């Protein structure tokens, strides 16, 4: 992981490739200057999802989905609830193991390796950070929430743990609010703080890929904005899959966006193209423009 001190400042290190208004929630429709494509299409992709289908028992909830996530890319996934977005995220870090009846077909390559072939599934999961829709602060101190993953992977030195905790909380834009109460319970922080705590916790795993599942659903607009800024900074170091219920959020953040509908990946394309109406499927335009169903 890149860890130059520049990333410690929470807002100092924003990726400015998108016009500034794209970070706000006021983004009404004006599409800024097209981004210079920093995630290079020629690089080996971080994640390759090929012909993936997912079923629970006999019920297939995701059918033959294929896409790639590039290095340092924010990949948006939009689509109505029930279209299989969360199920797909589960399959990526092999959490399907914990869901009775869930089966995954097809191929998922993470860092060039088939996830099903990783002998150490725990190492795979550490490389993939996950943030849930409802913030889950573990019933441990704020400090332990962030130091747990490093400790489990063998970091013992208290000074090193202090460093990790501070850095991760800084990068999740939470440090200033909790630095005086690192010993209070993470599960009793406010919803918005807990969500940033879960991001800090995910960062403590030093992930290469960060999965966010509708992170803003239980979070106030100000926190949502701060987290969006955080994500802009994080894309310097990792790839991010942003599943979101807010299409405008995908528009603000994602380089490319996929539209899922009832278990089908209707469309994958450059975010700009999808939001400017340059789509292959009319359903995508209908969903993006908010006239659906």
């Amino acid at each position: 992981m890149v860890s130059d001190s520049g990333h410690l400042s929470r807002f100092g290190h924003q990726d400015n490739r998108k016009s500034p208004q794209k970070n706000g929630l006021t983004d009404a429709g004006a599409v800024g200057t097209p981004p210079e494509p920093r995630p290079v299409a020629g690089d080996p992709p971080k994640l390759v999802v090929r012909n993936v289908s997912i079923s629970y028992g006999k019920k297939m909830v995701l059918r033959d989905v294929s896409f790639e996530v590039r290095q340092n890319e924010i990949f948006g996934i939009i689509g109505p609830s029930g279209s299989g977005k969360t199920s797909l995220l589960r399959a990526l870090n092999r959490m399907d193991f914990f869901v009775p009846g869930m089966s995954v077909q097809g191929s998922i390559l993470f860092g060039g390796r088939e996830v099903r072939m990783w002998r150490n599934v725990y190492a795979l999961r550490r490389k993939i950070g996950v943030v849930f829709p409802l913030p889950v602060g573990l019933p441990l101190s704020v400090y332990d929430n962030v130091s747990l993953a490093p400790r489990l992977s063998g970091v013992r030195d208290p000074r090193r743990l202090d460093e990790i905790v501070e850095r991760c909380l800084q990068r999740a834009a939470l440090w200033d609010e909790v630095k005086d109460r690192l010993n209070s319970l993470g599960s009793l922080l406010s919803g918005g703080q807990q969500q940033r705590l879960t991001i800090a916790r995910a960062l403590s795993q030093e992930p290469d890929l960060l999965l966010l599942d509708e992170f803003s659903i239980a979070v106030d607009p100000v926190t949502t904005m701060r987290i969006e800024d955080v994500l802009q900074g994080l894309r310097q170091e990792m790839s991010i899959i942003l599943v979101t219920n807010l299409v405008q959020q995908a528009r603000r953040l994602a380089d490319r966006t996929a539209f899922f509908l009832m278990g089908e990946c209707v469309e994958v394309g450059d975010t700009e193209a999808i939001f400017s109406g340059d789509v292959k499927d009319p359903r995508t335009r209908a969903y993006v423009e908010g006239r659906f169903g």
Partner: protein
Amino acid sequence: MAGFEASALNRRDQKVERLIRWLFLLMTLLLILPVFVILIFLVIKGWPVMSMEFLFTEPSNGMTAGGIFPALVGTVWLVAVALLFSVPIGVAAAIYLSEYASDNWLTRVINLAIINLAGVPSIVHALFGVGAFVLFFGFGTSILAASLTLGIMTLPVVIVSTREALQAVPMAFREACWNMGATRWQTIRHVVLPNALSGILTGIILEVSRTAGETAPIMFTGAAFFLPFLPQGVFDETMALSLHLFVISTQVPNVPEALPYGVALVLIGIVLAMNSLSIAFRTVLRRRKKW
């Protein structure tokens, strides 16, 4: 709120609500009434014999005088050895069933067995204890045989209460840990167990109080009628409060009336002390709310 007058129906609902509430309160009071009556009765009848001497000397004069020390110590031995056996096994089984077992036929058979084991009458456990521990394993009538019998009897309850404590820890915490790359055991050790501990202890303490009062399972397996020595090890027989109470109230002539009440009061005292401890645990648990 103009326009929303309480309707007649509404007022009747409120009346019913009040009535039901009082009715249920009455039932509750009726329920605890006997407990208080018994307690007060025991204190009145048993208090006269209560003394340091009563607690810390042996019975004398054919158990019509003296104290209860060997029985008191014996009960502590029996309960302690029973817990040594049932707590590790019960907690391990509960962790397995709650955290590892998938829902298959084996798990279902085990669950069924636990429920049935909990329903077996204590006298049947006693007979099993005689057959298995006293005779087959050759422990003779001893603390070991009696405690193992008690332990087996309490095992299902330990398992069930532990499992409930574990399952009170929300699933989301486990999933968060697994997503971080924690193994099941790491998750249990760092997140589930610490948060279930008070609940587990509460269950175990309640078990202690129940075990202390059991008579049938120890009667044929290790508790002695009269034995004015303290046990030296787990292969000794011992007196026990519960059996002693049974003996002096039914088997021995000319026991002064206050004596059995005194024994009963000590027994109840132990049980209540244990229960208070578990309530205290629970209160602490509630106050230190974690989510």
